[in-house]
């Protein structure tokens, strides 16, 4: 067993699960979407991206691309959320909905990542 592969798979799957934890709940209900979950989803996604850098195979390139998409979605979500908070008013349902839907987009990218990872792993002949 390769330790590096374990960490690699761990972070890719964790990025998806974290993303999902934030995503579930009513889309416009701020009580269902905690900022800590969002924070962890973003950090794990960034780490997963860095881990994917350097693998220049076809699948590697695709993995990196999906990860960059997820990062982009989450960072836009963070900016939207941050700007809403700065106004000083409690977060509105509309803002929450757009942050969650952005995270939903990131989740699709993460799902593709995991599917690619599975496909690549299953290809390896024992």
């Amino acid at each position: 067993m390769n330790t590096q592969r374990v960490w690699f798979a761990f972070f890719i799957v964790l990025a998806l699960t974290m993303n999902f934890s934030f995503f579930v709940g009513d889309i416009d209900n701020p009580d269902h979407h905690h900022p800590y979950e969002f924070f962890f989803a973003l950090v794990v996604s960034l780490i997963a991206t860095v881990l994917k850098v350097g693998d220049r195979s076809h699948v590697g390139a695709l993995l990196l691309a999906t990860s960059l998409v997820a990062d982009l979605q989450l960072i836009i979500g963070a900016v939207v959320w941050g700007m809403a908070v700065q106004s000083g008013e409690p977060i509105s349902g509309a803002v929450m909905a757009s942050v969650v839907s952005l995270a939903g987009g990131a989740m699709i990218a993460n799902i593709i990542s995991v599917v690619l990872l599975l496909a690549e792993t299953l290809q390896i002949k024992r």
Partner: protein
Amino acid sequence: MGRYRARPKVRGAPMWIVLLELRTPLIVLILTYAVSCLGLVLIPGQTDTGEVYHLSFFDAFYVISYTATTIGYGELPYAFTGAQRMWMLVVIYSTVIAWLYALGAVLTVLTDPEFRKLRRYQKTVNRVKTHPVPFWVVCGYGSAGSQLVRFLDQSGTRCVAVESEKSRFDQARLSNLSYELDVFWADAMDPQVLVDAGVQHPRCQGVVVLTDSDQANLTVATNVKILAPRVPVFARSKSDANTRNLRSFDTEVIIDLDRVAARSVGQLIQRPKAYALYHELVDPDLNRIEAMPIPETGHWIVCGSNRLSELVCEVFVRDAIPFVWVSPNRPSSDDIEWVEGPGTEAVTLKQARIDEAAGVIAATDSDGDNLSILLTAKAEKSPLVTVARRNRPTSEPVFQHGGFSVVLREGRLLAQEMFARIQSPLLHQFLSQLELMPEALVDGLIDKLYRRLPEGDVELDHFVISLREADAPAVVSALESGQRVELGDLLRDPGEGHPPLALICLFLVRFNGDLVPFPGEHLDLGYGDQLLMWGAEGVDARIEWLLGRDDLFQSLLAHRSIS
């Protein structure tokens, strides 16, 4: 370093290597930031009025960002509590260290010599891939390689160079050419390097292999033959065994420098005019006939114990030139008059009867010895023909000022031979004919040109005319309309009165492949003939004008039939 492999294992943009090296520093940076932000968000603070509050993620990220980069705006939005300050201490040290670590890693990669070499290499590969004009690949940028590249540049041909030595590579990058030379700092024996240098490129015209090692030359030649069979290979060889080896797989041109130099010495002694003509034609830097007076009587003294001196002796024996060999080693044949000794001392030269000698050939492998031999010889006898072998290009100044009759410069000879073959096959065919021509014929030919030359210091040049639509439309249309065109018609000025130009035709290759050296002026020309012309510099422009314009050429033909 060492995590990435040097070219050619890693292909593609070197940026990927930077990213690979930065993986750990980036993860460390992300984790430090994440933990720091989280800490600030979790630890409760106090507003000015004493209420408990928590920093938002946005505020936390802001504080961490300016702290980590050591900018430090202070405690925002409210003065921190003791607990927050304790956490900030941890943050300050850990984030600053993480930054230094990441920056250090970036700088290490960027300043790594191997990485920079790789990046430069990759840039050159990309440039060669999109090379816009035909080019030659020159392997080995020593004195021969650099001169060949310069000669080719003068005749408008571009090159790509491969050199494994750093100092020569730097020299190649500083070369003063009319275009930017693409140079690879790599070993040409590596097949991938040859591919990168463009041997498989559709615009690659040929490969010239000029390295100092026979093994390397042979390896490059075989590799090119396999990688790009259509590309001609011009290789240097330093031994007969290697020459046979190169010939066995049809290497197009093989130049054995020692043999070229020995033949050239023989030619100088027996046929000085042919020697002068040969060198005027092959050396783009030499633009006049410099015939040397060679004494009719007297023997020659050959100093040296290397392959060159042996080959010179071989030529002398074959052509029955009297000579004495001064060498520490006994000659293989007893027929050779031999004096044992280094030749640098007056005693050995006296033993070789220097007072009766016509000339001395200093052909040892050491420049110091060669200079010493010739200076001693000149002190013993004057006048004397002195032939010096220059081994190292750095010794050039002393040989230039030494006042020797002939200096054999290896790099230059090699560059000349290669250039003559690359520049025009016609010239090369003529040169092999020249070997067989009697001296009187060559002398007459030089006289003929000099009678046509204007007064003063005129530089000479040669060029090729091919009687086809592209090069000579006026001649082709005259031939097609059934007019007779003589060679003499191409040697006249297109201007008023059609005076003869300072130009002669050295060699004619008929459309059917027949070779005519020194054709007469009344010879009829036909479509597809190729002519090697030789004359004053700048005449080719007049001729080009004449050959391109029907009216000028017709008036010239009319002028001939009147007179």
